C-alpha cells in the first residue's frame, strides 16, 4: 500500500509542478472570487436591480451608452391609414428616426441604397412587409413593429366603436396576480445549475481522462514502463495514476467552485439574488455532485488508463479512446436532452447505470423525486462498477504494457485477459 502512495505522490506532482495547471487554478479561483464582488465596486443596478454604492460612482454605463447611442433611420409606407402618429414608434424604438416614404418601391430602394437601415411597407391592418439589407440572428425589430402595429389597430378599433381605451385596458388587459408555493423542488430554479454541473463533470472526465491515457502511453513511448512494472505491481501504477488524477480534479475544480460559490454567497444580496439559478446550489446537491461526480470520474479514468496501455504512441490514443468517448458523449446528450424530465423513465434508467449515474442521479436529486434507497443503490452500483473497471483496467494495463507497435484492439485486449502472458 505504501508503494501505491508513492505512485500517487509522484503522479500528483506531475499536476502540481505543472505551471499551467497551478496558474490556471489559482488565477481562475482568484478572478472568479474577485468577480463576485463586482456589484460592490461597480454599479450594476440595471442588471441586479439593487442600488449599490459604486467606488467608481456615476450611472449605470450600459443604460447611458444606449441612450446616448447614435440614431438609426427606418423608413415606412403606410397604406392602411393606421399610423396617424409616430409617437408609439418613438416609444418602441427610442433611437430610431422614422421617415415616411410614398410607396413600397421607395421603401425598398431606401434600404437597398443604405439611406435607411430597415423599412416597413404596411399594406393593410393585417399585412406588412419588412425590408432589411442583412437579417441578423436575433433581430427583434419585426417583433417590436408588430406589437406597435397591433396596438395601433386596437386603438383604431376602440375609436371606431366609441370605446374608452383606458377603461378597456383596465378591465380587459389587467394582469392576474398569483403566488407560487413550491413544496418540493422547483425544477425551473434548479435547472441551470444542473445544466452547468452536467457540463462541468463531462468536461472534467474528457479532459483528465485523456491526460491519464496520455500519461500511461508516455511510459510506453519512453520505455520507462519496463523498469516500472519490474519494480512494483502494475495495478499500483494504474491505480496511482487514476487516484492522482482524481485528486487533481478535486483540488482544481473544488477550489474554483468553492471560490465562486463562497464569493457569491458573501455578495448574494449585492447581486440581488440574480445568479441564484446558477450559483445558489443546495448543499445536498453539491454533496451528491461530489459523490457521484468523483465516482463517474474514477470509472472513466480507469477506462482511459486501460486504453492508454493499448497504444505505444500518444498520437494513437484517439484511435482506441473513441469507444470510451462515444459512451461519454451519448450519456452527456441523453442527460441534457432529458433534463426537463428528471422523473422520466430515461433519466431513471440512466441514474442506475454506472456509465451515466454520475450525472443522471444528481439531476434527479436536484430536480426530481428520488428516495434515499434509490440513491444508495445507485451509489453502490457505481462504486462496485469502479472496482470492477479498476480490476479490468489493471489487467489490460499489465497485458498492454510491453506490447509495442500497432494499437491493440479493445476486443483483443479483453480476450487476452484470461490468457497467461
Amino acid at each position, binding site marked *: 500500500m*505504501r*508503494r501505491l502512495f*508513492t*505512485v500517487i505522490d*509522484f503522479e500528483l*506532482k506531475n499536476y502540481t509542478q505543472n505551471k499551467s495547471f497551478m496558474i490556471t487554478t489559482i488565477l481562475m479561483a482568484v478572478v472568479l472570487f474577485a468577480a463576485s464582488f463586482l456589484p460592490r465596486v461597480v454599479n450594476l443596478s440595471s442588471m441586479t436591480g439593487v442600488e449599490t454604492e459604486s467606488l467608481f460612482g456615476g450611472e449605470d454605463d450600459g443604460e447611458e451608452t444606449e441612450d446616448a447611442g447614435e440614431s438609426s433611420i427606418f423608413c415606412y409606407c403606410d397604406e392602411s391609414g393606421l399610423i396617424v402618429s409616430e409617437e408609439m414608434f418613438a416609444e418602441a424604438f427610442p433611437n430610431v428616426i422614422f421617415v415616411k416614404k410614398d410607396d413600397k418601391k421607395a421603401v425598398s430602394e431606401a434600404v437597398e441604397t443604405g439611406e435607411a437601415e430597415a423599412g416597413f411597407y404596411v399594406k393593410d391592418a393585417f399585412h406588412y412587409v419588412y425590408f432589411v439589407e442583412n437579417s441578423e440572428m436575433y433581430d427583434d425589430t419585426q417583433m417590436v413593429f408588430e406589437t406597435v402595429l397591433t396596438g395601433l389597430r386596437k386603438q383604431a378599433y376602440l375609436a371606431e366603436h366609441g370605446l374608452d381605451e383606458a377603461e378597456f385596458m383596465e378591465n380587459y388587459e389587467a394582469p392576474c396576480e398569483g403566488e407560487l408555493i413550491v413544496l418540493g423542488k422547483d425544477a425551473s430554479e434548479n435547472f441551470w445549475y444542473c445544466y452547468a454541473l452536467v457540463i462541468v463533470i463531462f468536461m472534467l472526465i474528457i479532459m483528465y481522462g485523456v491526460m491519464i491515457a496520455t500519461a500511461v502511453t508516455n*511510459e510506453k513511448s*519512453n*520505455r*520507462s*514502463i*519496463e*523498469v*516500472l*512494472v*519490474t*519494480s*512494483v*505491481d502494475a495495478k499500483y501504477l494504474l491505480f496511482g495514476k487514476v487516484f492522482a488524477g482524481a485528486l487533481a480534479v478535486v483540488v482544481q475544480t473544488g477550489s474554483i467552485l468553492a471560490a465562486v460559490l463562497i464569493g457569491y454567497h458573501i455578495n448574494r444580496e449585492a447581486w440581488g439574488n440574480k445568479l441564484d439559478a446558477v450559483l445558489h446550489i443546495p448543499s445536498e446537491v453539491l454533496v451528491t455532485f461530489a459523490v457521484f461526480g468523483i465516482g463517474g470520474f474514477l470509472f472513466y479514468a480507469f477506462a482511459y488508463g486501460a486504453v492508454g496501455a493499448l497504444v505505444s504512441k500518444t498520437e494513437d490514443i484517439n484511435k482506441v479512446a473513441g469507444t470510451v468517448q462515444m459512451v461519454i458523449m451519448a450519456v452527456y446528450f441523453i442527460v441534457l436532452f432529458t433534463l426537463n424530465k428528471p422523473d422520466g423513465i430515461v433519466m431513471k434508467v440512466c441514474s442506475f447505470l454506472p456509465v451515466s449515474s454520475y450525472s443522471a442521479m444528481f439531476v434527479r436529486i436536484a430536480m426530481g423525486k428520488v428516495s434515499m434507497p434509490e440513491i444508495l443503490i445507485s451509489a453502490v452500483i457505481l462504486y462496485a462498477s469502479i472496482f470492477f473497471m479498476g480490476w479490468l483496467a489493471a489487467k489490460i494495463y499489465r497485458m498492454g504494457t*510491453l506490447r509495442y507497435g500497432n494499437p491493440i484492439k479493445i476486443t483483443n485486449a479483453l480476450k487476452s485477459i484470461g490468457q*497467461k*502472458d
Partner: protein
Amino acid sequence: MKLEVRNIRKSFGDKEILKGISFEAESGKALGLLGRNGAGKTTTIRILMDVFHASGGEVLLDGEKFDPRKVMIGYLPEERGLYPKKKVLDQMVYLARLRGVDKKKASENSMKWLRRLQVDEYAYKELETLSKGNQQKVQLASTLVCDPEIVILDEPFSGLDPVNSQILKDVVNELIEVGKIVIFSSHQMSYVEEFCRDIVIINHGEVILAGNLLEIKREYGKNQLVVSPVDGDLDRLAGWLAADFGKEVAVTGTNRTDVIIKLAEGVTRMQFFKALSDRAADAGIEIEHFETYKPSLNDIFVERVGEEEAEAVQETAQEQGNAQAGGGKHA
C-alpha cells in the same frame, strides 16, 4: 546467494521461444548471458523479472521460489527508458521508493550513485537535457539506487564512449567484489570476457554452451595451435600447411595474424614443431610465431552458434528432402 534457473520454457501462441533454459548464478560472480538477436536472452530475463510468466520450469533463489519483488534487484533493461521531462534526482528517488527504499535513503543513494558515475552535476536537470551517454549513466545509477543484491544488466555498454565504458567496468567489478549476483547480457564479447566467470550461450531458445569460461576456452584450444609467417601471407602459409602437413594437422581457420591448425590424433606439438622447422626453409617460408591457440569468446561464440545454424540448415534441408521424397511416392 544462488539463483537457479531450471528448465524454463516459454511459448507465445504456438511459437516456442524458450525450450528449457537452465543456468545458475552465484554471489560474487558474474554470469554472461550470450546469444544472437532473438535467441531468447531478453525473454529469459523478463521471466526472471516476472514481466512474463514462464510456460514451464522454475526459478529458485537459495532453493526457494524466486519472487523478484521480494528481493532487491537492479534491472537495466535493453530498452532504456526514464522520464525525459523529469528531473534526474526526482525520478531516481521515485524508482528507489517503488522498490521499497525509504525516501531519505533513496535520496542519499541517488546522490551516491550519481557521484560514482560522475553525473551528480545533472541531479536537478531534466533528463532530456543530458547527452545520450550521460542519460545512459543515469539509467545505470537508477538500476543501482536500491542497493540491489542481484544486478541484471542487459547490454549495459551500448551508447557509452571508452571513458564512460571504463567507469562502468569499474562499477561492475566493484559489484562483483562486494558479492552481488551479476547477470550480464551483451553482444560485446570483450566485456563478457572481462567480467564473467561463467557463460551461457543461448540459441533458438536453447542453451548450446554453458560453464566456466576458462574451462570452455581451454577445451576449445585443446590440440590447436597458431602459426604466423614473417611476410604476413596467411593464404600461402595455410595452403602450404594443408598440402605438406595434411596427415599431421588440419587448417581450421585464420585470424588477423595467424593460421589456426589442429593437430591430428597422436601428433605432439614437439613433433610438429620439428617438422615445421625442417620443411619451412625448403618451402621458402619464414615462421615468426608459433604457440598454443587461445580462442577468444567471440571465436567460440561464432563457432558454436555457427555450427548450430549449419545443423539447423542441414536438418531443414533434410526435412524438405524427406517431404519431397514422400510426396514423390504418393505421386
